[in-house]
């Protein structure tokens, strides 16, 4: 007897780096599974191996390798402008049959910055300044893969930097290396995590008992509006009725003050509440913010794909067990 549910999705907002949506008609176990998969099991690319030819910078090899690892690496499928799911294009290096590495399981970046050489190309008045090596200096050997220098164009316009800073070089210093990016998941290391934020909150169900509220004076209603620190209530300009504000769902957090205030207004303690706010158990507001490695909507799609793959795998294993 199938116990299947048919959840619903409503999009509230999409930007390349951000998505907000409502998941409903399912329970926390599904919401939480999706959240956990987005954080820990959506595969991305990240620099995992660095070969140094020369490093005379002030930072040691390990320090720079760590910084390189944390740079978000974006994969864009051919003809697409979106940071997409890289799992169709790459193999996890553990699964690849090659001896060390190959284009199927890795992407190579070359970086070669020599302060003295570069300084000759700078204008006279800038030659005393240090030179910042950034993610822009990483040259990829795969057209579809590049570092994500900024989250979006707005950030890029506001920034004084060229990209993500790695190290500053001074006279006589030279950094030359080859960085190898691989596909992985953030269960292994957080550098593979595609999200900066992946959270959900319970939808607040705000019920206003208009019949009970009709006993209140305008002043008392105003008092209720002000009792709520999140300002989830307002007075309707025409009718003077208490109503929930439009975006109450993203503000409602603390409602104890509202409870105290309305209990004080009741004639008898057992009277009905004027306003009731409860957490919905089957409606969730998700906010997902990308690191830049993937577009936010692609992270959501990828998390569902990962969930499906995991379920298929388990289904096959349970079948094997039955025989």
């Amino acid at each position, binding site marked *: 007897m199938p*116990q299947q549910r048919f959840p619903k999705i409503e999009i509230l907002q*999409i930007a390349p780096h951000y998505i907000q949506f409502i998941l409903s008609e*399912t329970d926390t176990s599904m919401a*939480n599974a999706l959240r956990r998969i987005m954080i820990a*099991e959506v595969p991305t690319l990240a620099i995992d191996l660095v070969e140094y030819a020369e490093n005379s910078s002030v930072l040691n090899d390990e320090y720079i390798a760590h910084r390189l690892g944390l740079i978000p690496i974006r994969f864009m499928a051919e003809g697409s402008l979106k940071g997409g799911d890289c799992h169709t294009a790459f193999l996890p290096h553990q699964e690849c049959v090659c001896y060390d590495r190959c284009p199927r399981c890795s992407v190579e970046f070359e970086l070669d910055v020599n302060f003295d050489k570069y300084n000759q190309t700078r204008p006279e008045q800038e030659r005393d300044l240090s030179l910042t090596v950034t993610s822009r200096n990483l040259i990829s050997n795969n057209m579809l893969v590049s570092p994500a220098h900024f989250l979006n164009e707005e950030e890029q316009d506001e920034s004084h930097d060229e990209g993500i800073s790695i190290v500053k070089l001074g006279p006589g210093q030279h950094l030359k290396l080859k960085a190898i990016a691989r596909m992985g*998941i953030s269960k292994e*290391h957080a550098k593979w995590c595609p999200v900066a934020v992946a959270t959900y909150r319970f939808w607040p169900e705000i019920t206003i008992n208009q019949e009970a509220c009709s006993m209140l004076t305008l002043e008392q209603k105003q008092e209720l509006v002000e009792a709520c620190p999140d300002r989830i209530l307002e007075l309707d300009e025409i009718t003077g009725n208490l109503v929930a504000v439009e975006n109450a769902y993203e503000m409602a957090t603390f409602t104890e003050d509202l409870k105290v205030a309305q209990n004080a207004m009741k004639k008898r303690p057992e009277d009905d509440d004027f306003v009731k706010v409860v957490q919905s158990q089957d409606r969730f507001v998700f906010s997902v913010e990308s690191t830049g490695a993937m577009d936010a909507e692609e992270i959501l799609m990828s998390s569902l794909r990962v969930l499906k793959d*995991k379920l298929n795998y388990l*289904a096959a294993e*349970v079948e094997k067990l039955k025989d």
Partner: protein
Amino acid sequence: MNAPERSAAFILDDDEEKIEYAADTKVSNAGTFTLNKEDHTMSNLLRMQLLRDPQVKFAGYMHPHPLVHKIHLKIQTTTSQVAPAETLSAAIEDLSNETDHLITQVTDAIEKWKRENDTGMMGM
């Protein structure tokens, strides 16, 4: 020095099966599945889905230790006619269908949003 590989959290060891089953010796129609290299993500999902099945009398999971990457999932069914493995299969299938449904829901919702909010992101 003796730290385990980080990938040991999700890649099966050489001699490891994904799922092991041990029938309960004291309780009838019950048994414990050991899901190797799984965590709360799948186990809680499975547990909640199993609890919605009227043929399941008990379903619970345990993560024995944060550094031990396995889950013990215990299932007891209401009758001897239904094996715990059958209910587990059914739960996985329902969740699989739910995920399929979600994939189409998300695809449709994103398309709809982009149609209604022509932000110049079309074709991106």
